[in-house]
């Protein structure tokens, strides 16, 4: 499975856009990129998934360059409630039963 590297922590202020970048240099051709959010004492929650270029939903955007060796999760206008750990995962296609491995994630702290 492709290994991912992301910053351990980030700070931001309310109303700002936050970009969290994840490196995955050995991503395979059929690997997808998935991001989860986790609050303390809760299970992770799916945010967004993509394969290439740009994906956007009501919560976030995911930018993936052509070489797919990195990806950036963009959270528009964060609020205090966005303070959480964000995980980047890369792995086999959705048809694979084996689940992706969660790394240590990025602790995002949104300040007032």
């Amino acid at each position, binding site marked *: 499975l492709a290994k991912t590297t992301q910053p351990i922590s980030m700070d931001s202020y309310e109303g700002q856009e936050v970009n969290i970048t994840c490196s995955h240099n050995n991503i395979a051709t059929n690997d*997808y990129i*998935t991001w989860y959010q986790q609050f303390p*004492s*809760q*299970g*992770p*929650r*799916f945010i967004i*998934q993509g394969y290439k270029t740009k994906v956007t939903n009501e919560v976030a955007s995911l930018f993936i360059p052509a070489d797919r060796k990195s990806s950036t999760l963009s959270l528009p206008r964060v609020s205090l409630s966005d303070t959480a750990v964000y*995980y980047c*995962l890369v*792995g086999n296609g*959705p*048809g694979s*039963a*084996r*689940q*992706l*491995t*969660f*790394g*240590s*994630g990025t602790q995002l702290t949104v300040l007032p």
Partner: protein
Amino acid sequence: SQTIHQWPATLVQPVGSPLSLECTVEGTSNPNLYWYRQAAGRGLQLLFYSVGIGQISSEVPQNLSASRPQDRQFILSSKKLLLSDSGFYLCAWRPRLGSTYEQYFGPGTRLTVT
């Protein structure tokens, strides 16, 4: 709609005692099921996953075991707990034929081994 239940919510057990954590899913059939453990301040470690009744794949060799006696029931067990078994245990499910990686997590069980 689908829901996932875990119990107990918290558990304090002495070293050497047995363990049984249960997870059940409602509102779906033939799900893939997963057990994770999260140590304090760490990421999630995949312990077991299952694609069907009686089918268990182990990711980490240890003193834990898993069973799937029914389609929507997943059990995590241990015969003798170790101090290192303390952590936050999460069960999750995913549609077997899903088109995304989206997993749905239960509320978790906080296990403290003393």
